[in-house]
């Protein structure tokens, strides 16, 4: 990752940070509290996620937070002392975010 790539990764990190901050807590409450508690019917929820808008929502909610993780974790690991591995880590983490995004697209189209 050359230095000139930095603005792209930083923008994705930043966009992912906003999406995570505003949308992940309520989604966690839906999948982790409301469904197990029986407030939301899991069968109907399974149908709801097939709506085109829900698919877009889920795509954004998977892809951008993955890039947020990749960028922030890269620098956290560097801060924890693995400075020499920065280039390898960048390749690995951004690569994983790209792979995750591809899988999200694949599964959302298959729904």
């Amino acid at each position, binding site marked *: 990752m050359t*230095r000139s790539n*930095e603005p792209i990764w930083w923008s994705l990190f930043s966009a*992912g*940070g*906003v999406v*995570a*901050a*505003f*949308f*992940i*807590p*309520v*989604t*966690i*409450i*839906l*999948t*982790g*509290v*409301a*469904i*197990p508690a*029986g*407030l*939301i*019917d*899991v*069968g*109907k*929820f*399974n*149908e*709801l*996620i097939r709506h085109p808008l829900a698919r877009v929502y*889920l795509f954004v*909610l*998977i*892809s951008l*937070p*993955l890039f*947020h*993780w*990749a960028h*922030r*974790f890269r*620098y*956290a690991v560097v*801060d*924890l*002392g693995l*400075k*020499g591995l*920065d280039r390898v880590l960048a390749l690995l983490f951004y690569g994983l975010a790209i792979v*995750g995004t591809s*899988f*999200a697209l694949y*599964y*959302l189209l*298959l*729904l």
Partner: protein
Amino acid sequence: MSNQSAARKSKEYVRPMPVTWWLNRKTYFLFMVRELTCLFVGGYALFLLVLLAQANDADAFAAMLNSPLSVVLHLVALLMVLYHSITWINLTSKVMVVWRREDRVSPKWIAAANYVVWVALSLSIFGICWKIAGT
């Protein structure tokens, strides 16, 4: 970044930094906690991906969401992601510069507006899902 690569090439003495440097002060510790919230942000994205992968098997989909392990992990993730949300809103409102006529809008007002939007969005999304899939 340029400082780092320059430092690596020079023969100057670089004082070694212990891996536990962030445990020495509360502010350093909270900084590291904030940075590591990304593990839960990314982890939840991964969870959604795995959930989608078996969405076409309704029983597996339901079993995954109703497992006690899933509930525990969700609660831990919720705490960490809430910390991300709060630190993110507080920080970005200081970075954003908004002018109203001659005066710069106070970061506190920008943060307050963000909190209002955050709560409104969360209630709307929960409300829509409850209306469609509520029991």
